[in-house]
C-alpha cells in the first residue's frame, strides 16, 4: 500500500472485550487498521470473527474497552459504512427486482414520502455498473446465481457511497470463477476509489493478492498485523490448529496449504505452538500501528 493512501486509522480498538451470554468471546483487543487498506478477519470457527465485525458496526456492544470507526464511536458512522452480512441475499425476499433492492442502499433509511431523486437513482445505477450487474436491474434477485446475488448485495452497500465496506464471508458458497470476480470487484474498489475494506474470511487464499493486513483471533485475543507477518506457517498452523504451510508461487504470491496426509516433505518454517504464544504475548506481532 502506498504511503500517501494512508490517512487516519479507519478502525481503532482499545483494550476491547466482548462477552455474550456470560461467556467472553475475545478480550484485550488493541489495534488500529489504516484507512485505505484491505484487511481480513481470520480465525477458526467460533473464534468471534463475525462478532468482531458486528462490534465494529455497533450491532453488538462491548463488555469492555472501546471501538472507534471512522473517528466516531462504533455505530455512529452508519451512513459511511457499507455492510454485507453472510449469506445476505439468500435470506432476503428474493421476489424483489435487483434495481429496487440496490436502491434501498440509498433510500432505505429515509422516512417520509419523498420520491427517489435522479441523483440517488444514479448512485444505485453506478453501483450496479461497478459490480458488473448493470444489465440485471429488472431481473428478480431469485433469478440470479449466487455470485451475481453477492454482487447485488455489494452494489446495495456501495449505493450508499460508503467510505468503509465490511463483508462477512463474501466468498462463501461461491464457485471459483465467482470468487475471483468478487475479489476483482473489491480490488478495484480499493484501488480506484480508495475504499477501506474489511472482510471476514475462512479461507485467505483467494483474497491474498489484495490483502494489506489481517486481524487474527488467536487464543481469545484479536491482533492486527501486516499480511507478510501473518503469512507465517508457524503462526497460521497455530491459528488454524492444523498443519499449514506457506509457499511462494512463481507469480510471487504466497499460499497457505494444509499439508496432505502424506508424511511431511521438504523444509518447513515451523515454530512450536508455545514459541508462537510466547511471541504474541510479548506483542511482537501486534505492532502494526504505522
Amino acid at each position: 500500500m502506498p504511503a500517501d493512501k494512508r490517512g487516519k486509522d479507519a478502525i481503532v480498538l482499545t483494550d476491547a472485550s466482548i462477552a455474550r451470554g456470560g461467556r467472553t468471546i475475545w478480550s484485550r483487543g488493541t489495534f488500529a487498521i489504516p484507512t485505505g487498506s484491505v484487511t481480513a478477519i481470520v480465525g477458526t470457527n467460533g473464534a468471534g470473527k463475525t462478532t468482531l465485525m458486528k462490534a465494529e458496526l455497533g450491532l453488538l456492544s462491548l463488555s469492555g474497552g472501546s471501538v472507534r470507526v471512522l473517528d466516531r464511536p462504533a455505530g455512529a458512522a452508519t451512513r459511511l459504512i457499507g455492510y454485507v452480512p453472510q449469506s445476505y441475499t439468500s435470506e432476503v425476499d428474493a421476489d424483489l427486482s435487483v434495481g429496487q433492492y440496490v436502491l434501498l442502499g440509498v433510500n432505505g433509511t429515509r422516512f417520509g414520502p419523498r420520491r427517489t431523486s435522479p441523483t440517488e437513482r444514479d448512485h444505485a445505477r453506478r453501483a450496479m455498473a461497478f459490480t458488473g450487474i448493470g444489465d440485471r436491474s429488472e431481473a428478480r434477485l431469485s433469478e440470479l446465481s449466487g455470485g451475481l446475488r453477492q454482487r447485488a448485495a455489494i452494489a446495495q452497500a456501495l449505493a450508499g457511497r460508503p467510505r468503509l465496506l465490511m463483508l462477512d464471508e463474501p466468498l462463501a458458497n461461491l464457485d471459483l470463477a465467482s470468487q475471483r470476480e468478487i475479489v476483482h470487484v473489491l480490488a478495484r474498489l480499493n484501488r480506484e476509489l480508495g475504499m477501506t475494506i474489511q472482510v471476514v474470511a475462512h479461507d485467505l487464499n483467494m483474497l491474498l493478492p489484495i490483502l494489506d493486513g489481517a486481524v487474527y483471533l488467536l487464543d481469545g485475543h484479536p491482533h492486527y498485523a501486516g499480511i507478510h507477518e501473518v503469512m507465517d506457517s508457524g503462526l497460521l498452523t497455530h491459528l488454524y490448529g492444523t498443519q499449514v504451510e506457506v509457499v511462494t508461487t512463481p507469480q510471487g504470491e504466497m499460499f497457505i496449504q494444509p499439508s496432505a496426509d502424506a508424511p511431511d516433505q521438504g523444509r518447513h518454517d515451523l515454530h512450536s505452538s508455545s514459541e508462537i504464544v510466547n511471541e504474541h504475548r510479548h506483542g511482537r506481532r501486534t505492532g502494526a500501528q504505522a
Partner: protein
Amino acid sequence: MNVFFFDSHWLETLGSPFMLKALIAGALIAVAAGAMGYFTIARHSTFAAHALAHIGLPGATGAVLLGLPVSAGLGLFALGGALVIGALGKKASEREIATGTVLAFATGLGLFFARLSSSASQQMQAILFGSILTVTSGQVVGFAIFDLALVAALALVYHPLLFSSLDEQVAQAKGVPIGVMNLIYMALMAGVITIAVPAVGTLLIFALIVTPAATANILVASPIKAMAVSGLDCLVSIWGGLILSAMFPAPPSFIIVTLSTLMWGLAMGGSKLSARRARG
C-alpha cells in the same frame, strides 16, 4: 340446498343497502390487506400474522360476553398480541412453535368465552368464518378511518420498513431503528386483521392477506406494484364473492377464499409454465 341453484333476483340483492355496505367494506379491506400483505411476506411473518387473528378470537367472543362491539375486543386482543410479538423482535415471529402454541391456546380461550353466553355462541361462526353481509355503517366508517391512517403511516415509514423487512442486520447497521419498525408493522397488522375478520373470519384470513400478496409477488417485482396488484386481487376476491353469493346459495367467505386461491394457483401455474418455456 342445491349449490347450483341460480337466484334470478340476484341483481335486486346486489342493489340492497346491506350489499352496498358490504361492497364498500370489501374495497376498504382490499386496500389494507393489499398493502400489508406484501410486508408480511417480505418479513417472513405470515405465520405470526395468521396467529394474530386467532389471538383476537378470545377478544371478540369476550367482547360479546361483556356486551361490547366485536371489533373492539378483537382489535384490542390483536393489538396486545401484536405488541408482545413485536417487542420480542422479528426473530420471534419466526418462532413457529411458540406462536403456534399461543394460537391454539387463544382459540381455545375464544371457545370458552363463547360458551359462557348464548349470544357469543351465536356469533362464534361469524367470527370464525366471517359475515361481510352484516357489516354495519359504523364499521364501514371505522374501516375508512383505518385505511387513511394506514396509508399515512406507510407513506412515513415505507422505505425503512421495507429495508428492515429484507434484512434487519443491514438495516440496523445503516441506522434504521429496527425495534420501532417491528412494532409499527405488528400494530398495523393488528389493525388490518381487525378490519379483515368481518369479511372472511379469523380462520380464513390467510387467504385474504397472504395469498393475494403471494400472487402479486409472482406477477410483479416492484413492491409498490405488488401492493397494488395484491389489493386488486383482494378486491376481485371480495367483490366476486359478494356477487356470486347473490347468484348462488354459497357463503361469501367460501367464494372469497376460493377466488383468492384460484388466482394464486393460476399465477403459480403460469410462472411454472413460462419458466419451463424459458428453459426450452
